[in-house]
């Protein structure tokens, strides 16, 4: 039996799938539990979610098993050694980047607007919390006493979301009149402007503390418990992330989601169909920005430090790489892309660098410092962008468009004349929009 046959047999047999996935989770769980220092075991356990994605279980089962892995198994398996916090740190950042990439995916993937200054919204969120959760706000706020307590964090998640959305709209109103490729340039310029302003807004009134940044941002607090460790932030991020994924899923198949796709495919035709171009694009900007702003608040609280160097153009491009790598317009794809890029950035490259350094120290081979993988981010991202644009523009997990079965629709139409929902199940047709 060759590989293809084997795969199709597995695809056909749910019980076999359950055994494989279960076994995989148990083995990777056990190996991480026992071998605490094994980054590979940690990554393999995370990869169980990808495996789960490819199974043919119902969505509810997938969510349940995935939830079990993320809420219980992963933290539990990682909790047995010194590396616990660093694993959770990675997992937390993965979550933050996934939410941002999902936000950018709405703008680039669904609405087809290339935004190269996306990190600006993240910065807005971070600074919003950073300024009020340090004594910084005392410099210019006429009333109130700062820093605000850690309990305000929960409110600030929403404030960050709103501020970013507001700026998304404010930026969008003039900018969205610009045609496609100029938009990329304008957003890039906007991103730089925001960074430069934050970098210099220590005078005349000291609002952002300039290049020095804001230190000792108050950690979140709930019922007297302070959230200080990545293992705690992990759960905050997880909850927000689930809400974000849920929202994205809902939006994608809603009226506005279809309007986004229509605008992406052909602006003029979309307009002729009665879609309000500017309003539709503004929505994309606002929603995308709001995810980013929310995570900015979390990021500021987690790092307890905010400065402009976290919000450079490279960050914007990094998020773009996540979207392109995973697949523009595809939610599972973007999640995968964000996870891969973040882990690559935080874990693989550093591990590889350490390993090479050790080899150099023990004299096996000599790798010059200039070529150390940790410095090669731009190179790697550049290669990813080029290769994917050229050979796989639809990304690793391409977006699926639901296909309506004509006959089926007619049948349901006659029964429920108002039913125009997406037809689930049946065939899923993959559109390779390139």
């Amino acid at each position, binding site marked *: 039996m060759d590989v293809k046959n084997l795969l199709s047999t597995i695809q056909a047999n749910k019980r076999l799938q359950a055994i494989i996935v279960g076994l995989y989770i148990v083995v990777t769980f056990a190996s991480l539990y026992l071998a605490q220092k094994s980054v590979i075991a940690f990554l393999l356990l995370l990869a169980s979610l990808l495996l789960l994605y490819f199974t043919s279980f119902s969505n509810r089962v997938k969510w349940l098993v995935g939830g079990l892995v993320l809420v219980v198994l992963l933290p539990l398996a990682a909790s047995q050694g010194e590396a616990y916090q660093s694993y959770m740190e990675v997992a937390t950042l993965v979550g933050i980047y996934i939410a941002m990439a999902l936000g950018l995916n709405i703008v680039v993937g669904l609405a087809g607007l290339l935004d190269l200054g996306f990190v600006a919204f993240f910065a807005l969120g971070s600074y919003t919390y950073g300024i009020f959760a340090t004594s910084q706000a005392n410099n210019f706020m006429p009333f109130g006493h700062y820093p605000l307590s850690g309990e305000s964090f929960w409110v600030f998640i929403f404030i960050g979301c709103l501020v970013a959305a507001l700026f998304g709209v404010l930026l969008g109103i003039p900018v969205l009149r610009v045609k496609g490729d100029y938009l990329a340039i304008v957003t890039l310029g906007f991103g730089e402007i925001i960074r430069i302003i934050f970098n210099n807004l220590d005078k005349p009134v000291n609002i952002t503390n300039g290049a020095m940044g804001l230190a000792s941002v108050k950690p979140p607090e709930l019922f007297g418990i302070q959230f200080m460790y990545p293992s705690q932030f992990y759960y905050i991020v997880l909850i927000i992330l689930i809400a974000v994924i849920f929202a994205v899923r809902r939006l994608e198949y809603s009226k506005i989601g279809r309007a986004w796709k229509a605008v992406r495919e052909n602006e003029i035709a979309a307009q002729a169909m009665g879609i309000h171009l500017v309003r539709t694009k503004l929505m994309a900007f606002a929603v995308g920005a709001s995810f980013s702003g929310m995570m900015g608040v979390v990021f500021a609280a987690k790092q307890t430090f905010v400065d402009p160097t976290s919000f450079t153009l490279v960050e914007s491009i990094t998020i773009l790489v996540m979207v392109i790598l995973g697949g523009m317009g595809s939610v599972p794809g973007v999640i995968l892309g964000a996870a891969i890029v973040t882990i690559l950035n935080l874990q693989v490259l550093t591990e590889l660098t350490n390993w090479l350094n050790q080899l150099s120290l023990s004299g096996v081979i000599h790798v010059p410092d200039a070529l150390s993988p940790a410095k090669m981010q731009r190179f790697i991202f550049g290669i990813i*962008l080029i290769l994917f644009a*050229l050979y796989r523009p639809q990304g690793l997990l391409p977006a699926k468009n639901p296909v309506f079965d004509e006959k089926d629709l007619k049948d349901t139409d006659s029964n429920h004349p108002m039913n125009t929902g997406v037809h689930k199940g049946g065939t899923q047709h993959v559109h390779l929009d390139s």
Partner: protein
Amino acid sequence: MIEQVLQTLPQVLIDGLALGAVYAIVALGYTMVYGILELINFAHGEIFMTGAFVGTAILLTFSGLGWMASMPAILALLLVLIVTSVATGLLGMGIERVAYRPLRNAPKLITLITAIGISFLLQDIVRFITELKNGNYILTGPSLFSKQIGVKASAISSVFNDASVKSSFFIVLILAVIMMVALDFFVNKTKWGMAMRAVAQDRETAALMTVNVNKVIALTFFIGSALGGATGVLFAVQYGTIDPYIGFILGLKAFTAAVLGGIGNIRGAMFGGIMIGLLEMFAAANLPVVSHGILGAEYKDVFAFAILIIVLIFKPEGLFGKVSVEKV
């Protein structure tokens, strides 16, 4: 306040002109490629940067071999300019062949993304080669034409302060003018220049006139990149120190210049470049003065990007352009 602005004006004009000349030639590369392919060639700023590094490397090699002493500096510079422009010209052509041509019928979004990818790739390749050879990615070239010449602007009118000019300023300016005039002649007066304009206006019909469109596009990339690379060398000579990240922001400003002059319009790009250079220097010198120190010189980039955004939003056809109707 006006007094202070006027005092620094001579120096602002000199510095702005030097910077503007650099922007102008880099803008030519953007405008030519956009004119012919409707593509923002993000990598063009990196071609400029690569040119700066290649040129500086050759100059450093020359002085390492002791040749600089035996050869007039201007001759060495010309030699370096020729070698560098051929190298970056070929690089630009190669990028078009490998990364843009296969995507010519793909959605613009995808091509733009490739261009960003190329841009990052070039930055890092230059970074690690320099770091490998030099130990550090910041490179300082041999100092050429560094004699300071005083300009007695106060002799014209007492409201001006005296200014000073590095002698390289004249060389940069003269060479930049030569390059621009040569390009203008090529595009407007020669057969291949005419073919370039024809391809930019109507690619399909140009092919019906026996024009090999791919060849013309490759030629466009070669010329634009050669000019960009040569400008990189001039930049390195004028400002001394370079790093692999000088290209991106400079490229963005040069692109602003191209848009300001009307994208696709070669003379417009030259004009736009000079304008942006002057405005930037003016802003750098006077923003702190005008705002009483509230806005520092760091805001000059904000100023440049604000111009970019305002032009793109309100006058995307440029200062002298006509509104074009979007094709369906």
